[in-house]
């Protein structure tokens, strides 16, 4: 049967057949891509409890498990991230100079997280604090707050 003589119907059915296969393959491909985007994370939650306010002395305390600094001024708390905004290394608190130093490319931040040397593009973020029902400080590292933020503990 020559192509010219093929009835419309057959061409139409062929068209449906071909595109069904394409659609099926596209769906499978979509499934593969979806598989790679995780639904659950085996990571600590972004909102987590620290300790009770009374456990933190005056000044800057490094919390290595969550890579952040708890800063206490009498009864006012704030939390600064210890992850350098350049490429993710953990900065070190240099109490003598009252600054944060990053060992990777030499970025330096003042005590309030503002950068004053090195390639880091943004200041160290501050995270908001709240109090849990049983008296623990709770950090929400999914949000950031400006450097005027203070959390007062009664």
């Amino acid at each position, binding site marked *: 049967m020559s192509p010219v003589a093929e009835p419309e119907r057959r061409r139409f059915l062929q068209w449906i057949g071909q595109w069904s296969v394409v659609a099926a393959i596209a769906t499978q491909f979509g499934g593969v891509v979806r598989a790679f985007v995780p639904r659950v994370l085996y990571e600590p939650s972004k909102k987590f409890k620290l300790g009770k306010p*009374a*456990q*933190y*002395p*005056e000044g800057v*305390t*490094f919390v290595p498990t969550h890579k952040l600094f708890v800063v206490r001024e*009498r009864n006012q708390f704030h939390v600064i991230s210890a992850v350098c905004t350049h490429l993710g290394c953990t900065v*070190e*608190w240099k*109490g*003598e100079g009252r600054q944060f130093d990053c060992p990777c490319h030499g970025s330096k931040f003042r005590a309030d997280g503002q950068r004053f040397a090195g390639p880091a593009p943004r200041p160290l973020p501050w995270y908001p604090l709240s109090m849990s029902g049983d008296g623990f400080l709770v950090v929400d590292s999914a949000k950031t707050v400006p450097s005027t933020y203070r959390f007062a503990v009664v």
Partner: protein
Amino acid sequence: MHRSFAPNRDFWPLLVASIASLIAVLVVAYREYTPEWHRQQEAFRRYLRTRGAFAAAAAVPDNVEQIWLPALDRVDRCISCHVNYDGSISTLPDLPPLYRPHPDLPYMAKHPFPTFGCTSCHGGQGYATDEAGAHGLVKHWDDPLLTTALAAQYGLARAQLMEIKCNTCHRPDDTTPGMDLINMGKEIFAKKRCVSCHGLEGGGGLGSSDLTYDGDNNPELLPFSAVEGEKTALNWQIQHFESPQKIVERSGMPNYRLNEEQAKALSLLMLSWRRISFPPQYVPAARKRPPAIQPVVREVPAPPPATGAPAEQGRYVFENRGCNTCHRVGGGPLIGPDLAGVTQRRDERWLATWLKDPAAVVAKDEKLQTWTHEFGDIIMPDQNLNDEEIKALIAYMRQFPG
């Protein structure tokens, strides 16, 4: 046999390359089959034969030997060279050090090899099979073998340096037989009431850092500018205990006038406090005395308000320079005495001299030296106050008669 029809291109280079690759492979095989542990075991065998112990010589293994500790998630291969560690091969007298069995110390019965291995007590890198690697004298292994030479660098005996390892597990004990220095350290720690200022295990004070895992602190974060000698955490601790003000600028920690031995005891104690987890069967039965009542400042009290400008200024200094972490004005003693009425008990000149350098005043006054016993033998640390601040403080305290 046919002859190749084509001329032999690359004949000589190919020959050289073939022979070179063979030689390279043979060198590799030689290195694989003559590792250090093999040579050590061979040497031991030969030695035993020269002493006529042929049965013992036959018992020397020719393989990597290891103690596998799945509960502690580690492996100790020290016994590949220290083959006779348990005396199972030979009990001849006067063996060279490498071949001697482990001395039978009193606590060995409670710390048998199959359960504890070697590195739990001695340090080093159990995974390695060559001397330098096993003794941990390599870059990137921060748990070196605790040797006599390393201990001598700190003026300690090897058994004393090893107390760091003991106390990592025996932390809950008040005293442990065999841990003389650290036992002393724990005693000093309790008597001097360090927890008044330092946090510890969920409790303690707020005046300074939490010491619960002090041994895990990154040495790079310690200030070494005033430390003499090697830049090690142990050195830092010893010199810091001997004089906190020298090592940490504007330190608020009192100088307890510790002697060298006491400073070392406390330093070993600090370094032994590390994060470690092990299964229940390893937890030692704690030897604890009944707890004494510890005075501890949990909430720093606000100093009472003042009237009039100079007194208000004094109140500001009182709060901002940390006087209120140790003293109250009315309300009883904390770490230091209640300061209400102090201006009636002491004249202004005495107070000014005291605030300038308390330790000097105590050194000159014998009565004061016994009086500090009431306050845990703590002498008020020099707060680096200037004259203006001292005047303001005295004006403030004058407002509160006793």
